[in-house]
């Protein structure tokens, strides 16, 4: 008697379970997520292949929110949690080289800046200015000596 009750409950349970699963059918939810892709390159132009990425959320600047590795082309993409607005810090490092960029995420809008803020032209002009100053120093002291 006792056995048959247990068996009966078991059979009922088996019959019941699938019906609950099928009764609701399929359901797909969606949210619009902001995907951020970064590309990390050395200033020689070659990609930082397999470089390590650390992403810091605005609410915790000391522990990474996510860590990962770039692909062979230096690419890495992630979906930030838009419920944490503020400035996200993305650091890419490899073998003692690396840089950090800051991306601001506010209620769905994303703004950021590239880490290399200078164009090649600007870099050349800066280098020329510095060298001009150095040459000027050299010539100045050469003249004093004479």
């Amino acid at each position, binding site marked *: 008697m006792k056995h048959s009750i247990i068996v009966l409950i078991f059979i009922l349970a088996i019959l019941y379970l699938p019906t609950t699963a099928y009764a609701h059918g399929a359901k797909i939810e969606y949210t619009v997520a902001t995907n951020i892709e970064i590309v990390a390159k050395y200033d020689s132009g070659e990609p930082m292949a397999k470089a390590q990425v650390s992403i810091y959320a605005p609410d915790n600047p000391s522990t990474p929110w996510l860590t990962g590795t770039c692909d062979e082309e230096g690419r890495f993409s992630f979906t930030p949690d838009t419920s944490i607005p503020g400035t996200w810090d993305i650091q890419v490092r*490899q073998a003692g080289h690396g840089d950090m960029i800051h991306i601001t995420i506010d209620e769905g809008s994303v703004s950021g800046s590239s880490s290399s803020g200078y164009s090649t032209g600007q870099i050349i002009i800066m280098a020329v200015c510095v060298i001009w100053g*150095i040459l000027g120093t050299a010539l100045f002291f050469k003249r004093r000596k004479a």
Partner: protein
Amino acid sequence: MHIPDGYLPTAVCAAGYAIAVPVTAFALYKIRKEGDPREKIPKASLLTAAFFVASWIHIPVPPTSVHLILSGLMGSILGYFAFPAILIGLFLQAVMFGHGGLSTLGVNAIVIGLPALVAYHIFRLRTLFGEANRTGTGIFGFLASLCAIGISTGLFVVLLINFIPADMDADDERNAILALALGHVPLMFIEGAFTAFVTMFLLRVRPQMLIGI
């Protein structure tokens, strides 16, 4: 070879400055003892310019690429002037190009500048052959730069491997550091040959530039 901001713990950056300051003071003291420093400033300025742009000259060493450093050449030709010159060059590279960083300026000055002073003392050994000996100048110029890059790479690797940031995968990072260090082995010979060439050339056309060094 330039360690950027955000890599080393604050204590190490502070220690870098704590060592770099007395070394700079010592170098300046030595420069003043040698006589009128203004005489050598033109030479030091020109080499600072060369050092400043050298980090843009990339040499492909598959699978990576390394850039010229020229610390051995600076040490060989400038003597104690090399250290303040490298310090100024590193400062300009950090603020202009973002090569290295201001927090790590002290550490980088030690990693690149101290081996330059070692190079100077190696280059001085050429006087065993006589100051005007071309072969001796070439050999010790070569050895000076070879050792400067070798010591710099050694210091760089020891610092980075001991202070891998906690949130990085230590094994991956260690392998990447060692791969980069290996890429500096050909650079040792390239810079060695370059310094030998430049010093032998100077010995022929402007021998007074090497006198007293």
